[in-house]
């Protein structure tokens, strides 16, 4: 909701993403902070930030698929893996530059995701969600056994290069991921506001009613999988260039579940929520990992693995608590605070 006194006088102003000057300033400051970050934070934090950016792309894709279109997807990590392998294979086998392999990695994942989306023709509800677990199994099997992907040794990648400049340093990789993430995020806002995004929301809220309104339900569901998997693939390709090593163990069902956890905590049905969720979950994970050793020093009776295990207990509890107390995530909470601030002193 906009603050009082802000109203649109033309259609383009009404559909604009940035509506007030304050929002524009916030956006510019936020982007400037992201650009300046590598010069402020240390190498470890920089690596964590890069992982956050990559996860953001994947989580935003899942947000479109699950948050907007309401199709639970338990195979997002597999889609990400397909993108990573495709990009790695195209780069090592054909020597393609990264600005081709990243989109093509996304496309490969999109095709893989689309196949599972297509099963929406026949399969509905939880059956559809659970067939995406099959994606995870099939991905693991094919990339481990097909001859082109290095089997259990995985794929090694050369660094991405542009006009002779190699993306080797942490800082350059951060910027590469930042640029891609920004493009993908704005794309997601576009999709969410546009015709397809509205169709997604209609199908999520009630697919029978959506069909009555003339929305092709099956096509919409398949498109949701296509778009979500494309985002996962792009994220996977970035991951391939970041780690420069791709193996099936990097993309397990457990990773998919973490992505779902991110959008639950951030808030279903909001692109910004996905970004917040990635930040919060990754930050908590890293805090546990960083504080773990000193925690163990404090209580020498506990083993090192215990910290990791405690992290799982804590985060599992956080996810459940969010679903029980704030099913719409942090984003919803933020909107409530914003609204009550604008309405003050009136309750509504």
């Amino acid at each position: 909701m906009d603050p009082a006194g802000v109203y649109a006088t033309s259609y383009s102003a009404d559909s604009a993403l940035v509506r007030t000057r304050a929002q524009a300033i916030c956006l510019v400051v936020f982007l400037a902070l992201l650009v300046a970050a590598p010069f402020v934070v240390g190498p470890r934090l920089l690596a964590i930030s890069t992982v956050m950016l990559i996860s953001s792309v994947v989580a935003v894709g899942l947000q479109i698929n699950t948050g907007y279109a309401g199709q639970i997807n338990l195979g997002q990590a597999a889609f990400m893996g397909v993108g990573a392998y495709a990009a790695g294979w195209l780069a090592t086998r054909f020597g393609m530059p990264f600005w081709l392999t990243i989109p093509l990695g996304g496309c490969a994942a999109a095709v893989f995701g689309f196949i599972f989306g297509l099963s929406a023709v026949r399969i509905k509800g939880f059956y559809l969600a659970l067939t995406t677990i099959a994606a995870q199994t099939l991905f693991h099997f094919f990339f481990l056994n097909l001859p082109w992907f290095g089997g259990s040794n995985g794929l090694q990648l050369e660094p991405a290069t542009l006009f002779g400049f190699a993306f080797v340093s942490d800082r350059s990789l951060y910027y590469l991921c930042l640029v891609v993430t920004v493009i993908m995020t704005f794309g997601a806002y576009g999709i969410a506001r546009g015709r397809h995004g509205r169709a997604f929301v209609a199908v999520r809220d009630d697919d029978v009613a959506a069909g009555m309104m003339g929305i092709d339900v099956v096509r919409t569901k398949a498109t949701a999988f296509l778009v979500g998997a494309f985002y996962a693939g792009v994220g996977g390709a970035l991951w391939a260039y970041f780690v420069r090593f791709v193996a099936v163990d990097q993309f397990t069902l457990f990773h998919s579940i973490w992505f779902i956890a991110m959008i639950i905590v951030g808030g279903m049905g909001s692109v910004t929520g996905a970004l917040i969720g990635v930040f919060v979950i990754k930050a908590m994970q890293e805090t546990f990992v960083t504080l773990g050793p000193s925690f163990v020093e404090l209580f020498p009776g506990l083993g090192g693995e215990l910290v990791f295990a405690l992290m799982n207990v804590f985060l599992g509890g956080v996810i459940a608590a969010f679903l029980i107390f704030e099913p719409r995530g942090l984003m919803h909470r933020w909107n409530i605070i914003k609204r009550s601030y604008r309405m003050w002193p009136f309750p509504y």
Partner: protein
Amino acid sequence: MIDFLNYLINGALVGLLYALIAMGFVVIYRASKVFNIAQGELVVFGGFMVWWMIVQAGLPMAVGIPLAFVAAIAFGLAIEKIFFSRLVGESVFSMVMVTIGLLILIRGLVLVLFGPAVRPFPIIFPLKPIILGDILIPRSLLFGGLITIATGLGLSWFFNATRTGLRMTAVAEDHQVALSLGISVKRSIAFAWALGATLSTLGAIIFLSGKSLNFLASDIGLAALPVALLAGFESIAGVLLAGLIVGIVQGLVTAYVDPAVGGAVGSVFPFLIMLAILFIRPTGMFGWKTIERV
């Protein structure tokens, strides 16, 4: 020919084990309409309970196993009390999402309580296989198979013929309708989780007897998923048949196709059958066909 018979019988028995684990999914679905993604973690938890009672606490089996079941039931009831009793009236979507949180949570809990080390699981069924001519049948799987069939038929009768079972069936159909008919959704969900945890512990005993146990044993939950989907979530007796199909096909594929291809086709094949069958019959072989009304 003898080899073939061996593969066939062992495949069928492994299939019945899958059916038992899948029954855990189905029972929770049949009494609460929630699909429990954390089923594999329940199996691990049950397994560790048995291990703890018998190996760690040194109780005799006749005492330890019943106590492990009691602990599993208490665990299931605790899950209902802490998480699901607060979610009655919320969408089924968020209940299923809670089970995702549960998956992470229970895995962490098992690691905190029992550690990541591989533990020897007590030998509950004698290790010596039964030998019929040239056919070898592992005892744990044979007894397990018989227990599975008995449990499956018993539960099927319970859900389809008794008053309590039909009440739970109503909950699986629609929470609101069940509530307005005066059925306690909360109690039904509590029962579902207690039963689900019991079946998981039973599955753990049959699956792990004489083997080793650590938190990775939860993969059996995933392996049993095609069985539950193939049967349709609503059918308990159907799970037995689906288990047999999946087990036999998987056994034969592992025996004859894997050496030729040099990969684990056997482990993905159930998923391929599942996808194929869901395309033909989207609700599984025996699932309910829901009619949508506007």
